[in-house]
């Protein structure tokens, strides 16, 4: 079955430090890849997406992600975290020919001063 794995349930980083959130998906047809962010009490907002082309994609709020087909991964990065980045982050994958998007379980980011 198709699946998306975010191995880290929660991560704590210091403000100003770099961040990497991991995401792996099960092998399948050409994937469409997404990262969403959810602030407390809010719905999900798209950070960035990958459909094709350059495997390093830039998103909003200074985030970027890199697609590595050989590793079935789509990790999210930010060079310098701000306190306002504290939220829950979801990786999501859709496959060609389907309607559904599969979401990972989420990684909650805590930022310490």
């Amino acid at each position: 079955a198709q699946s998306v794995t975010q191995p880290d349930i929660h991560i704590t980083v210091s403000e100003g430090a770099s961040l990497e959130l991991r995401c792996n998906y099960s092998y399948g047809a050409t994937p469409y890849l997404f990262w969403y962010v959810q602030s407390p009490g809010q719905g999900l907002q798209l950070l960035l997406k990958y459909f094709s082309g350059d495997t390093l994609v830039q998103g909003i709020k200074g985030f970027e992600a890199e697609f590595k087909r050989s590793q079935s991964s789509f990790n999210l990065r930010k060079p310098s975290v701000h306190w306002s980045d504290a939220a829950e982050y979801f990786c999501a994958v859709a496959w060609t020919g389907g309607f559904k998007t599969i979401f990972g379980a989420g990684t909650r980011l805590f930022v310490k001063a």
Partner: protein
Amino acid sequence: DVKVTQSSRYLVKRTGEKVFLECVQDMDHENMFWYRQDPGLGLRLIYFSYDVKMKEKGDIPEGYSVSREKKERFSLILESASTNQTSMYLCASTQGQMEQYFGPGTRLTVT
């Protein structure tokens, strides 16, 4: 500015009540989805619809039904609410396999 709205942010219902959650999108999207979100489980798909009056079961449809009479509106129905349906419910819409646009969510408590 694109928008997905949900009828209530917070809802408290009693066991056995019939519950309606409504979702409206203004983007003319074909596809609409209902998810429930529980800590540690991420988003789980309850039902989705790819056209008016068309619906498909998701991963956890038991205890739920849906209705889509108009393209912009997708309703989730709990026929007889139970305490294990206490959760955050998120509606989303999308065109094709593009990114999904989410509503703010409805936090439902069943007592």
